[in-house]
């Protein structure tokens, strides 16, 4: 019971923190702040997914989902970096 309340608090706290990072995504100066912030949101979402899995007692299934999320987050960041590199060459 204590652990459930603890993880619930952590999860809600992380959800609030996501909005602070979202501010950087929307208003952040420069494209690199935005890319870093999007990556940070992905990492936070991963932890939130695992906490939801613990709260619903289905951690074995949510581990699968969070692994896919981490993977696509990595590939997405790589694609954005490659795109920026290409834009730099064109100028």
């Amino acid at each position, binding site marked *: 019971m204590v652990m459930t309340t603890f993880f619930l608090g952590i999860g809600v706290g992380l959800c609030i923190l996501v909005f602070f990072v979202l501010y950087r995504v929307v208003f952040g100066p420069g494209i690199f702040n935005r890319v870093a912030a999007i990556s940070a949101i992905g990492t936070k979402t991963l932890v939130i997914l695992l906490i939801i899995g613990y709260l619903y007692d289905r951690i074995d*299934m949510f581990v*699968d989902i969070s692994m*896919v999320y981490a993977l696509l987050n990595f*590939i997405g960041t790589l*694609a954005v970096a490659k795109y920026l590199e290409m834009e730099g060459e064109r100028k």
Partner: protein
Amino acid sequence: MIHVSDDIIIRTLARILVPFIQLYALYVIMHGHYSPGGGFQGGVILGASMVLLLITHGYGETKVRFSERGAVIFSSIGLLIYSGIGTLCLVFFGNFLDYGKLSTLLQVVPAHARSLGILGVELGVGFAVMAVMFSIFFDISTSGELPVDE
């Protein structure tokens, strides 16, 4: 977008990571009826592994393993598996994709036939989604023109 990355860390990481991503995608497809996932999700992960290879190693090296031609063939094969299993159920006097009727063909109880039928359909969906994901990324990043070989 699909030129060879000149960073050795990225290239080595992708080379090590791609087989594990594909193994995980096969796990997601195979366990689609026990856990979250299924044909579409597993196909997307398979496609993501191909996109990772294309981003890091360029078209010249990816072409050996999976080309545009392969994408066309694989999406057709996936659609054929899906609609073929569906039509096979029609042949045995059931509805479209009514897997229970396949029990006479597979010589198993209807419940097991349903499990096998869903697995087959998910394999087809996975193939088609993988090929179409690869094709969409390829077409967007090259705007329809084949790059010169490197």
